[in-house]
């Protein structure tokens, strides 16, 4: 388990910025933090060191009693999204402390961003696995089908992990080594180079490197 600290964020969308020499850079705008520390976990008690943080304030009337009880110690209300980050030393954080984007990151840092990619539904092998497909014309009757999926008498079964049609998307994907182009601490906004997984308003996990 990687010992990485991070934040939760929400993808706002994409835009473009220009560097001074005129190079256009496509950037993603992420609203991130403040993430409130809800619980500290230790080797002695839970068997591992971690902090649990909450992101996205939830109205009190929306909280059920167990969630309200769990969030009580932090004194900052409930949250829609809760995540643990395994770190080596949880003692540097206090329960109820809000971790801001400016606490962890600075412009030029390299980070990892994970999110759930957009759902593609049931897809064939060409879109899902990048198969080439057959010729469209010249009498060909083989277009987008996967073709043979294995041998005959031996092993007389389909090997595990064979690429086949099926549901595509909604899985968690991590984009590694993303450069931070800009930080706006007063708006809790992080601007990173390039795209990140998922739809607008989607939840993102942002990890320090």
């Amino acid at each position, binding site marked *: 388990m990687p010992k990485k600290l991070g934040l939760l964020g929400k993808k*706002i*969308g*994409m*835009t*473009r*910025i*220009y560097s*001074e*020499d*005129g190079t*256009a850079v496509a950037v993603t*705008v992420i*609203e991130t933090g403040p993430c409130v520390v809800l619980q500290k976990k230790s080797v002695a008690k839970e068997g591992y060191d971690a902090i649990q943080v909450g992101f996205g304030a939830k109205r009190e009337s929306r909280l059920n009693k167990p969630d309200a009880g769990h969030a009580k110690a932090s004194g900052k209300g409930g949250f829609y999204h809760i995540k643990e980050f395994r770190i080596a030393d949880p003692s540097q954080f206090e329960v109820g402390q809000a971790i801001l984007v400016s606490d962890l990151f600075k412009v030029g840092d390299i980070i990892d961003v994970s999110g759930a990619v957009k759902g593609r539904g049931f897809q064939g092998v060409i879109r899902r696995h990048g198969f080439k497909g057959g010729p469209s014309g010249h009498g060909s009757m083989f277009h987008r089908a996967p073709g043979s999926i294995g041998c005959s008498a031996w092993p007389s079964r389909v090997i595990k992990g064979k690429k086949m049609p099926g549901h595509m998307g909604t899985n968690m994907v991590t984009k590694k080594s993303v450069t931070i182009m800009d930080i*706006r601490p007063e*708006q809790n*906004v992080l*601007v990173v180079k390039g795209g990140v997984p998922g739809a607008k308003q989607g939840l993102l996990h942002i990890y320090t490197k």
Partner: protein
Amino acid sequence: MNIIEQMEQENMRHDMPDFRPGDTVKVHIRIIEGNKERTQLFQGVVIRRRKGVMGASVTVRKISHGIGVEKTFPLCSPRVDKIELVSEGRVRRSRLYYLRNLRGKAARIREKGIN
């Protein structure tokens, strides 16, 4: 969308003249060669304007030594020093791709206000 709109409002340029497809414009381009910087001019007819804030662009077409040349400039790019409006043209569509198939006299555009 609010944060993005705000970022774009902060970074957008307000020094662009109001020009439309069919107009003739003079684009001053900043060119960096080594550590020297100079300005190059590109004058021609606007054949397309792409809308947007940071992504807005303009395509200018001119005939250079008998060969049609088109350049697309991002309107917010710092490489574009300034754009001057030379003359306004009267055209009936927003994308003047038909100019690519016309030569010489046929490729002229009527000036606005002259019938």
